[in-house]
């Protein structure tokens, strides 16, 4: 109970190296009976005994209409433990953690935190009990500053009413220093790159007293460096007594940081395993219920004519700053060119410019015969550009439309889906049924609204649509973000097939593994321009990482 009880100091301790530390940490918990007493309420960490059961879930069930999102789930998390939840898209992971955070009321079962099993009413209640959560989708108010977001809901005030933003800023600085997550308290969230937004989310959760931290796919939007940074923070938190529930689709991360893993399938816990007793293949098999091929095997490319030529392109971002700055690249038929780079280096603007959705300042872009610099999305599509957009919810699908309509979103006025301006619903339905089959889109039928699909299935709808019309160039931006391994495998296979059928593929991804395993050629971008181009055979992971970081 005294100050002298030591907690690892952030500056002093090197980040635990992945893998081995987590193993030893688990061993700690498993073997050490000697309780580590923690200072109460100090720096936001709870009092308690490492190793005791902190979160105990029993018989938890929740259904939405006829969908059993969670069935009779029983699991527990001990203090200082990192537990990963794994499962395909729609397996019920988010539903599960949302119940712990009071966002969803369970149909049956109990959630007890620190032995208190009264139902959690709402997030306010959850927060009060020491639960913090980073949500799958950002829960930040875009037009507010970092500091404002951080204190929202527990603001300090002067004279009881006047908002004390100075103390908020101070708190942001302190927290960000303590956890080594740099953010500017006065920056508006809207202006921040996604990686930084995620940092804000994490700090926000930590700004309250947190005994149990839930992270729902926090790494989906992070670069490898940022991911490592986060995993380090997680390890550190766990060491000092915070329990963490961690959801991710990336097995590498699970193996690196988690102590234990629960695997969910169709709303049920189908397995529980200690990370030291399993490996990636084992986890993937548990998740999907069959063997998953984690590596892509593809024939060497046979590049043909150039399909896309970009020369000295300049494009501005939303704030009017140069985002794409002298970008040149050529994509040939029958090859996959991967654009690797830390997010925010002009990739989004590049993709939008190519798709005709953003004005070009200067430069040349050609797709076959079409001059893309002045083309609109309609023209680019009809010139043979398939575009899997980065933000599928925003651009890729119309949530209130049926899957069938979404599958013809940019072909609806073409034969056979329309004849002289009149839509042909039979053709639309047939197309949808064919693609649903072919792309394994899991739904009740082709007239289900696309908005009600799980993330992976939404992505399949988009991919199906963009590949179905046999594009000359398939441009895929972050095509597997937030998608489960089974679907990733599937989408990757389809991309390679498209290449083999002669399409050029421009793959934009922040996922270095994805770039490395799919691409035939790699262009590394930094600051809106290509800083290096190489064949995949010549690529070296660390070298690319160095280039991405702007070290060239």
């Amino acid at each position, binding site marked *: 109970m005294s100050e002298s009880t030591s907690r690892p100091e952030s500056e002093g301790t090197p980040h635990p190296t992945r893998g081995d530390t987590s193993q030893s940490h688990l061993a700690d918990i498993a073997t050490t009976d000697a309780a580590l007493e923690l200072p109460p309420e100090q720096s936001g960490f709870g009092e308690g005994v490492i190793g005791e059961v902190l979160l105990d879930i029993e018989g938890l069930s929740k259904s939405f209409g006829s969908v059993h999102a969670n069935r009779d789930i029983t699991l527990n998390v001990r203090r200082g433990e990192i537990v990963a939840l794994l499962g395909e898209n729609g397996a019920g992971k988010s539903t599960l953690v949302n119940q712990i955070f009071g966002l969803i009321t369970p149909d049956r079962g109990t959630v007890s935190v620190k032995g208190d099993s009264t139902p959690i009413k709402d997030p*306010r209640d959850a927060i009060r009990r020491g639960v913090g959560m980073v949500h799958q989708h950002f829960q930040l108010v875009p037009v507010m500053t970092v500091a404002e977001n951080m204190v929202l809901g527990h603001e300090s005030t002067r004279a009881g009413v006047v908002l004390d933003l100075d103390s908020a800023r101070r708190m942001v600085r302190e927290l960000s220093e303590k956890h080594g997550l740099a953010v500017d308290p006065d920056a508006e969230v809207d202006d921040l790159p996604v990686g930084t937004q995620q940092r804000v989310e994490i700090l926000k959760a930590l700004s309250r007293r947190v005994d149990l931290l839930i992270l729902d796919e926090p790494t989906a939007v992070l670069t490898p460096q940022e991911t490592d940074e986060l995993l380090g923070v997680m390890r550190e938190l766990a060491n000092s007594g915070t329990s963490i529930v961690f959801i991710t689709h990336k097995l590498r991360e699970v193996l690196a940081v988690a102590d234990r893993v629960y695997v969910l399938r169709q709303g049920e816990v189908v397995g529980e395993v200690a990370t030291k007793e399993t490996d990636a293949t084992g986890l993937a098999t548990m998740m999907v219920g069959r063997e998953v091929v984690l590596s892509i095997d593809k024939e060497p490319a046979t590049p043909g004519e150039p399909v896309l030529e970009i020369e000295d392109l300049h494009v501005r971002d939303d704030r009017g700053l140069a985002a794409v700055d002298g970008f040149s690249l050529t994509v040939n038929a029958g090859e996959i060119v991967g654009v690797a780079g830390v997010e925010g280096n002009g990739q989004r603007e590049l993709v939008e410019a190519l798709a005709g959705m953003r004005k070009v300042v200067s430069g040349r872009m050609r797709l076959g015969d079409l001059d893309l610099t002045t083309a609109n999305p309609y023209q680019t599509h009809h010139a043979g550009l398939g575009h899997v957009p980065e933000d599928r919810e925003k651009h890729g699908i119309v949530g209130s439309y049926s899957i069938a309509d979404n599958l013809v979103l940019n072909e609806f006025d073409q034969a056979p889906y329309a004849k002289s301006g009149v839509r042909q619903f039979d053709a639309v339905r047939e197309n949808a049924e064919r693609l649903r089959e072919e792309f394994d889109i899991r739904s009740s039928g082709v007239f289900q609204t696309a908005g009600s699909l799980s993330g992976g299935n939404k992505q399949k709808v988009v991919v199906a649509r963009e590949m179905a019309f046999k594009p000359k160039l398939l441009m895929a931006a972050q095509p597997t973000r937030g998608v489960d391994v089974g679907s990733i495998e599937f989408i990757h296979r389809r991309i390679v097939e498209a290449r083999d059928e002669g399409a050029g593929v421009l793959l934009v991804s922040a996922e270095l593994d994805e770039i490395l395993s799919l691409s035939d050629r790699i262009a590394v971008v930094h600051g809106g321009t290509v800083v290096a181009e190489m064949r995949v055979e010549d690529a070296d992971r660390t070298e690319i990482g160095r280039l991405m970081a702007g070290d060239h």
Partner: protein
Amino acid sequence: MERLSTWASKNRTPLVIAAAVLVAAYAFNLVRGDIAPSMFGAAWGYAIPLVLAALVGVIGERSGVVNIGIEGQMLLAAFAGFFVAAVSGSMIVGVLAGIGTGLVAGGFLAVTAVRWRMDQIIAGVVLNIIATGLTSFYLVSGQSLPGVIPNVSVPLLSQIPLLGEVFFSGRSVIALIAILAAVLVHLALFHSRWGLRTRAVGEYPSAADTAGIKVERLRMVNVTLAGSLAGLAGVYLSMDASSTFEREMTAGRGFLALAIMIMGAWRPLRAFSMALFFGFVNATASQLQQTGGFSIPPQLTATLPYVATLVVLAVAAGRVRPPGAVGQPYVKKDQ
């Protein structure tokens, strides 16, 4: 001091515009001292209910709730204020009844649009029709008010040339409250805990929810409380600006207030200035008619305020960004 200068640099454009307007106003006063004060006075008089009503809109929409029922809220309050005062023989009772009615009308919107998640536009339209129907249906003629709402002059402030004369001298209490309300709502919205939460709820309710704020409750409270300002605006119409209640006497002011709210970019003080601008163009239009000498038919000069508004918006900043979640009921994940 430092705070002041950062504040000034952050608000450079509005400050420059305000300064320019002030200079122009004093210049006009210098040239036409015979009509300038009265025109500004008329402009402000015209703007008073619009300011109050626009604040209702601002509070509602900043919390994420569209309120196109302001017209109806004002009408009901005007009705209740007038008749309760007439029957009870007490002005203050009437005023309170009017404000209370505004609250009830706000509560109606809160319950239907927020709690029941009825389409917000429909809820507002329903409120407007109910108000028109009820107040005409139960109108009794031949009543009159037992007194007047007192005019007051603010010491010191009323000494300021022109501005003091227009805003602080011999104006009714409600006019002063309108100024105060605009300032207070501005301060509250941008500098208080309530304001931060309100804006969060109107921008991105799920972020507020996950931060432990009860979205529905806050929305309901805000929409209901804002009703009191609509009530005050209604009371102003039937008990202060005029001393009578007539069918549909709000005459579209609730809708104009919405336009002013948007022109004011959902900011209280900017809406306040827009209401003044609107009032001024109105005063100019009627002054043109009244002084004669122009061959423009009065029907056409009467359209001046509206034309001016459109032109200003088309030329200048048309694009303003509304609160992100306005119009959408907040549906929790499992409902």
